[in-house]
């Protein structure tokens, strides 16, 4: 038996109806409100500030809301040299960020240690936290950072959001107030 449902809408006020999947709609919201956490550690942070200023204007992409609290941010931009002394702090801030969260390693130092093949510098922030995008440059131009953020938007749009939400398991990786070397080394274990 055929059932018909009348959808009532006023075509004069609402001219178009967009049909989409919930995943896509939610991802679309997320994509345009990526709040960065500026993890400014060295000179790349100056370029990051330039990206936020009027000439390059990061707010064109809905990312101008730089949050200095990890609780309120979505994407951590690691801008600068990560020393071993700072590494545990970066890791803790990353763990304090609420899911979903992404990481951009900005510049040579954050990506690989850069020119600092030295006793004091962590050889790439991907040793301690998972990185989504690496930006080349020393420091990278603001355009390069914006390119990475736009690529991140595309990545966010593709994410299976509902499936991820339904998946059981802890939202956060294990870890207390401090980290042991064995816990912190993601690259070697995965």
């Amino acid at each position, binding site marked *: 038996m055929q059932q018909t449902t009348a959808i009532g809408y006023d075509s004069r006020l609402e001219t178009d109806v967009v049909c989409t999947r919930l995943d896509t709609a939610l991802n679309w919201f997320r994509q345009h409100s990526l709040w960065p956490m500026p993890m400014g550690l060295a000179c790349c942070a100056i370029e990051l500030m330039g990206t936020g200023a009027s000439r390059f204007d990061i707010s064109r992409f809905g990312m101008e809301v730089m949050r200095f609290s990890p609780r309120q941010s979505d994407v951590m931009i690691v801008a600068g040299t990560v020393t*071993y*002394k700072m*590494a*545990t702090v970066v890791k803790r801030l990353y763990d304090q960020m609420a899911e979903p969260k992404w990481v951009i390693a900005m510049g040579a130092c954050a990506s690989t*240690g850069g020119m*600092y*093949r*030295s*006793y*004091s*510098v962590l*050889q790439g922030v991907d040793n301690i936290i998972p990185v989504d995008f690496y930006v080349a440059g020393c420091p990278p131009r603001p355009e390069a950072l914006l390119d990475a953020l736009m690529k991140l938007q595309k990545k966010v749009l593709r994410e299976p959001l509902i499936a991820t939400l339904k998946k059981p398991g802890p939202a956060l990786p294990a870890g207390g*107030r*401090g*980290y*042991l*070397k064995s816990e*912190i080394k993601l690259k070697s274990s995965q």
Partner: protein
Amino acid sequence: MSALDLAKKLRGEFGELLSEPSVFRDEVTLTLADPERIGEVCGLAKKELGFDFLLDITSIDNYGEDPRWTIVYELYGLGHKCHLRLKTGVSEEKSELPTVTGVWRTAEWHEREIYDMMGVRFRGHPDLRRIIMWEGYPYFPLRKDFPLAGKSSEVPGVAFTSPAPIEGGPFVSLPGGKDAIEREPRVRTPEN
């Protein structure tokens, strides 16, 4: 009064304890024979000769020589605008000398830095802790026998370190080389 005059005056007070002032590019250096008396010399330089500003204290590792450490004090007078350098050698077995924090308070952090990087201790320092590396880091990274790439270490809950990949380096260039091939950065060890 020039820096050389002031240096001679200081030498007049201590005699053979201080070397003859050596001048290089208008900079005057005195070498102190006994590091145990550095506080006394600095105190007099400040009170009597007007060196009221300690610019810096640095340290040199003369690896393979005795004494291994050279501690360098950069003195300046804001009144007479003269600069004086004091050097003193400290042996590796001792690795200790008196502090000058009683003369200039600013020496506190300079001495902490030398302790952190070189492992030379300063007797009588009010708060001799590491200043750049963290408490518990087992090495002194500015020593000549410490590799540039670093060593593994871990202080649970504080920080860890791993050796950096330097692919057989460090690569060193020779500035005085005849041609581009000789000046090229290469692995340079005592053997080659």
